[in-house]
């Protein structure tokens, strides 16, 4: 099955399961604290900011932080592609866009990618906002980011509507929570890549792990077998990683969300996400391309990645159909 479709099904299944759990009081919690009964995996950002805000060593929050960091080392940012509801909510953006739905937005040339440090390897805006979340919790004594967290607001919106119809619970929150959520994803198109402090936390922890990273079989890859530029894997990656040329890639490999779009789109089926991905091989870092080919590939890649990031899944779907 196409990974885009599979991912959408998994994300929706999680939302439906948690909503059914809420309605029938099965006590699964939400993604803010998912689990069963007293055993739950708290959002690492929520756990961190409540410890800071309450200035207390909250045992379950501490245990959660340790467990989550271990999970992140193993699975990296897989949460972002396979569980987080925000990319699904972002699809609603099409309703507010003047462009035809499914059309790929025109890309701007995105400057030099190799001289600036890679996203994920260096600090970026997400990390500052992660620091800001902790700082604001410390100053004001409550987890401020939780008020506007789009993941929390997604479930809040669902539950508010459930409560409105099942219990007649009438409040302005039922209007304001979905509006705030939509505002966040409509006006901040690059929320996940530039703002989300949770994604910053995950990419930091993922630096330590080398599991499930895209690995190319040089025996199949068109660039190594025919010595001509291909670059499709780098173009389609929604996270602007170029698995073939990690040295010139805009993002480092710890940003990989294991979405499998590169695996799906590789014309030679050369990419795999093995459980243990050893260090980047010599052939992968030392590209066999000529200077001209690299330049051509560079501009093409920049255009492709800009579009792919904005409408990554749409693009993937287009290619399939």
């Amino acid at each position: 099955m196409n990974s885009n479709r599979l991912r959408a099904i998994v994300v929706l299944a999680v939302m439906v399961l948690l909503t059914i759990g809420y309605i029938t009081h099965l006590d699964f919690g939400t993604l803010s604290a998912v689990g069963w009964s007293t055993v739950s995996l708290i959002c690492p950002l929520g756990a961190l900011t409540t410890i800071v805000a309450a200035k207390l060593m909250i045992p379950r929050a501490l245990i959660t932080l340790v467990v989550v960091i271990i999970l992140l080392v193993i699975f990296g940012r897989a949460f972002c592609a396979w569980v987080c509801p925000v990319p699904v909510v972002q699809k609603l953006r099409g309703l507010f866009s003047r462009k035809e739905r499914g059309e790929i937005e025109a890309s701007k040339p995105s400057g030099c990618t190799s001289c600036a440090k890679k996203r994920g390897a260096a600090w970026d805006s997400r990390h500052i906002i992660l620091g800001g979340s902790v700082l604001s919790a410390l100053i004001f004594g409550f987890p401020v980011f939780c008020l506007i967290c789009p993941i929390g607001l997604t479930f809040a919106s669902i539950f508010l509507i459930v409560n409105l119809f099942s219990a007649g619970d009438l409040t302005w929150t039922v209007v304001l929570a979905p509006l705030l959520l939509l505002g966040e994803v409509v006006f901040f198109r690059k929320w996940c890549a530039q703002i989300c402090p949770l994604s910053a936390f995950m990419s930091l922890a993922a630096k330590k792990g080398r599991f499930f990273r895209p690995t190319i079989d040089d025996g199949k890859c068109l660039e190594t077998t025919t010595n001509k530029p291909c670059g499709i894997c780098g173009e389609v990656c929604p996270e602007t990683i170029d698995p073939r040329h990690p040295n010139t890639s805009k993002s480092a490999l710890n940003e990989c969300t294991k979405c499998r779009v590169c695996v799906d789109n590789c014309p030679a089926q050369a990419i795999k996400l093995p459980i243990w991905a050893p260090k980047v091989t010599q052939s992968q870092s030392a590209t066999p391309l000529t200077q001209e080919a690299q330049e051509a590939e560079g501009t093409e890649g920049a255009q492709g990645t800009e579009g792919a990031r904005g409408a990554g899944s749409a693009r993937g779907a287009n290619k399939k159909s």
Partner: protein
Amino acid sequence: MKTSGGITRRSLVVGVGGTVALCALGTVRSVGASPLVRPPGGQDFERLIAGCIRCEKCVEVCPRHVVKPAHIEAGVIGMRTPTLNFNDDYCDWCREENDGTPLCVRVCPTEALALPPEAEVETTLLGLAELDASTCLAYRDTGCRFCYDACPYFAIELDEHNRPFVINNKCNGCGACEAVCVSLENGSISTGATERAIVVRALDENGNAVDGLSEGGATS
């Protein structure tokens, strides 16, 4: 894209902008919030607000369906934090369901709801019941005494005309009286009433019951 210290200038602007926005949002704390009737263990507002990540596990687990997310009308800072709504049932700390340990306290992952070890159901004040004689059916000589029969703590007594009144220092705000009050259902005789004749009021920091008009919680 120009860089300064390994970070692009644009990233710096977005990041600092986001941090400033979060700090600006944090000032809703000083705007304040009206006191609400909170679940057991939520009486310390500082603790509740510091720990609550608005995961709504307490809402989900409550077997009596009385824990509800607070409305934005009661203050932005308290939005979606747990509050009690006694429309259908009341809170007895899950005596039957969990041997007297409230399930909401048990499941709260961040201990935003936390009871001191010596806390007892009788002495932990969730709120205070307030009876409005102008809408109470018993004060119209109907002989209604549902609240008197429902109160588990004998905090409601009947006067010489069989009209109920609340003994304030026995009431812990469990909501049993409010849950059974039929004044609104039979409210044709008390037009203009927007709430039941007996309602559990939230307590302010001094332990005084807060007037119903200033309360924007989930009581309706």
